[in-house]
């Protein structure tokens, strides 16, 4: 295909549609366009967007590290499930609301959730890096195991695939800053997992682009042999990157469960409901840029937030349809814009003994 659409053309078309919507919405407030506009502009949509973005953004940042290092971690959906479930159940065991050793039970649950996700990532790393298993199959296995294990454990404890409620994180309000007009209520009067997400995006960008480790991760995914001959152990870099993906996904899963859901529904696709896969679509869409992935997660979470608001207003927009949007976007981006550049050695186990 010689005449692909340029990124500018696509952005232009999207911009034109947005302007059209804005004009139509302002001119006819009673129309669909008007209703959508008022929803998109409402603070509650924005608040919901930030919270819904947490699992997507954090899983995406984790996925970036794994994939940049050459290990495609398609199992981050499973890591989200594991961390969400284990954080809820540990909080439940400790008794919701109280505190132990100066930390509230929620934070203990949170820590165990992250740990559980990291452990799952470790198993995935061993299988993919040391045993050179097919990464896609191993990743699917992580997802399927988590998908079965969480409701199974829940059934043993609660006699139901859904856990009991354990309450949620309280908002943390930063004095003064939260008074800033427009942005203050969004960024500085919000539950802790949102701060973690924002901090993780900045930290992820810094780690990847400014530290020696970040450069090794990139080299490990592009040309592991070059890294090896430069005297850096590819295996260790890949282990670290995959474990990082477990940590980030764990922050996302546990943060989402304890900050947004307060319970874990294990039926069907579970409470995570494919957000790990949306995260993969998000980082591909963002071309492996952590801040871009944060922006992408806002986009997809924003659509979800709007859909929920629309439902509250009595408009029935099928969730399933909204869920297809991230994947459709990624296909559009990959096909027409073609800027996403997979790491050269992604998916290939590195065999250092070859020579």
């Amino acid at each position: 295909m010689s005449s692909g659409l340029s990124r500018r053309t696509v952005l232009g078309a999207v911009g034109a549609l947005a302007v059209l919507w804005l004009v139509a919405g302002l001119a006819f407030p009673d129309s669909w366009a008007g209703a959508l506009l008022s929803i998109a502009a409402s603070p509650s949509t924005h608040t919901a967007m930030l919270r819904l973005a947490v699992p997507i953004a954090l899983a995406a940042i984790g996925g970036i590290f794994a994939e940049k290092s050459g290990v495609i971690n398609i199992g981050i959906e499973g890591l989200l499930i594991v961390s969400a479930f284990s954080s809820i159940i540990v909080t439940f065991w400790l008794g919701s609301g109280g505190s132990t050793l100066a930390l509230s039970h929620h934070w203990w649950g949170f820590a165990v959730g992250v740990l559980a996700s990291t452990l799952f990532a470790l198993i995935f790393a061993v299988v993919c890096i040391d045993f050179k298993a097919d990464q896609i199959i191993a990743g699917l296995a992580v997802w399927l195991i988590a998908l079965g294990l969480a409701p199974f454990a829940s059934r043993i404890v609660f006699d139901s695939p859904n856990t009991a409620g354990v309450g949620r994180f309280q908002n943390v309000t930063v004095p003064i800053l939260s008074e800033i007009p427009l942005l203050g209520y969004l960024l500085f009067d919000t539950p802790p997992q949102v701060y973690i997400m924002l901090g993780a995006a900045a930290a992820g960008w810094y780690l990847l682009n400014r530290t020696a480790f970040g450069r090794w991760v990139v080299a490990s995914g592009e040309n592991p042999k070059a890294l090896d001959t430069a005297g850096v152990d590819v295996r260790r870099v890949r282990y670290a990157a995959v474990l990082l993906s477990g940590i980030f996904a764990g922050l996302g899963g546990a943060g989402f469960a304890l900050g947004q859901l307060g319970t874990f529904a294990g039926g069907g696709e579970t409470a995570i409901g494919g957000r790990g896969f949306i995260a993969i679509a998000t980082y591909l869409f963002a071309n492996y840029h952590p801040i871009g992935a944060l922006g992408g997660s806002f986009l997809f979470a924003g659509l979800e937030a709007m859909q929920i608001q629309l439902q509250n207003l009595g408009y029935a927009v099928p969730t399933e349809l909204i869920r297809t949007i991230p994947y459709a976007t990624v296909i559009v981006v990959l096909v027409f814009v073609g800027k996403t550049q997979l790491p050269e050695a992604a998916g290939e186990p590195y065999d250092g003994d070859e020579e």
Partner: protein
Amino acid sequence: MNDSGNDRNPRSQRDLAVHLDGITKRFPGVVANDDVDLRVERGSVHALLGENGAGKTTLMNVLYGLYEPTEGRVVVDGRERAFDRPRDAIDAGVGMIHQHFMLVDPMTVAENIAMGNEPRKWGGLAVDRDRIDREIADLCDRYGFDVDPSATIEELSVGAQQRVEILKALYRGADVLILDEPTAVLTPQEVEDLYGVLEELTEQGKTIIFITHKLGEAMHAADRITILRDGSSVGTVDPAGTTREDLAELMVGREVLLETGGEPVETGRPILEAENVVVEDDRGVELVSGIDLEVRAGEILGVAGVDGNGQSELIEAITGLQTPDAGRVSFDGTDVSAWSRRQRIEAGMAHIPEDRHEQGLVMPFDLVENAVLGSQRSPRFARGGRIDWAGVRDHAEDVIGTYDVRPPDADADAESFSGGNQQKFVVGRELERDPELVVATHPTRGVDIGSTEFIHERLLELRREGKAVLLVSSNLDEVRGLSDRLAVIYEGEFVDVTDPAAVTEEELGLLMAGEQPDDRSRERPASNPADGGER
């Protein structure tokens, strides 16, 4: 960079930077190095010359810590060392520039050079990028390099990438630099530049070991030459006191005919004609811009050029692997533009592909299976949809015997053979198809001198039999020695079609680099005749 000042003092003959003492390296079933001695003087360029599989690279991998020697001592700077991994060798001041560059394409020059040795700041929290840039600038000043640390590797020419590799080794404090087949990927001009770089480095006290199978290079650039044959050292000579013929004999173990080229043959009807062939890439960039060519029966048309100037695409358009965006290809008077690959093979087009791994062989298949590729439907081997494996086996064994494929084991998987032997097998399979036209791309790439001689002889024989040969190669000796007519391809166009005898290597090099040799350079006497035609 632990160059102490007194390194500049004149050294005695005995000042060895590297001494490999009685190195033996055994692999299961193979002795790759057998009691090899190598003494490399400080500040010298030492060539390690030998055919494919002579054990050159194995020996250097021992020195670089990739292999542990079965027997023998590695002495660097007068101290015996045991390198377990490259890191140890790097720490001892030994750097290696691999044949396939160990660079990360989307990363910058600075990031590549510092990789694994990044200076830190803020307590290790950040890479001190200013310091890297400063140190690279210092190195560039000192050795007369010119690279932009902020450029990405993929923006650089191959020659510049090689200089980045050298800088990478110097950055790590290498005093001994091992270069593995450094000229394999360079244009003649870049080769000259490389010789300049080597000279500059040795003047500053660095020691160079370079691995090569090209006689001319060793003669031209080295102070000493050690020749390896079948894993053993067969001698160390001074290039001033020896001849190419002597060296070739040492390398191969018998007398070698270095001159190629054949007596003129009456050419017949045009076998291959291409008119205005245009090939574009996915983005619509023209890779082949309207090439016309004709190869007659009994003729070899050579195409010289630096890799990546449209040769691959031109060949794919001719052999039917790619549909040209415009133009016409005729075979023996018939327009075959719309023919499939299979039809072209059946009509008598043989193709020695440029990349034996990607296009020539199925690596996990054994040689019997590989022997039938391309002939799987020919009546010779196919009986009603089934393949006559006994017949194929005979054929495979014929090819193995005739083309000296080693080890001669038809049941071994293609991937278990060395590159040169894989190449011999592919060449044999294609040439024994009884073709009317042979499209040969780098037919002797990676093949040792003895087998190269045989493949050349075979191509000339086909020409005598009245077959047409289209020969694409970046090896100037080869295209000049074999071709009846010589075309130079640059950025998708033939910039010149000439008589190979009427053009000097220097002029060819300029043409390949996209420059027209001006009158002045034509008048200049051709470089030392002993150099001519070596590379």
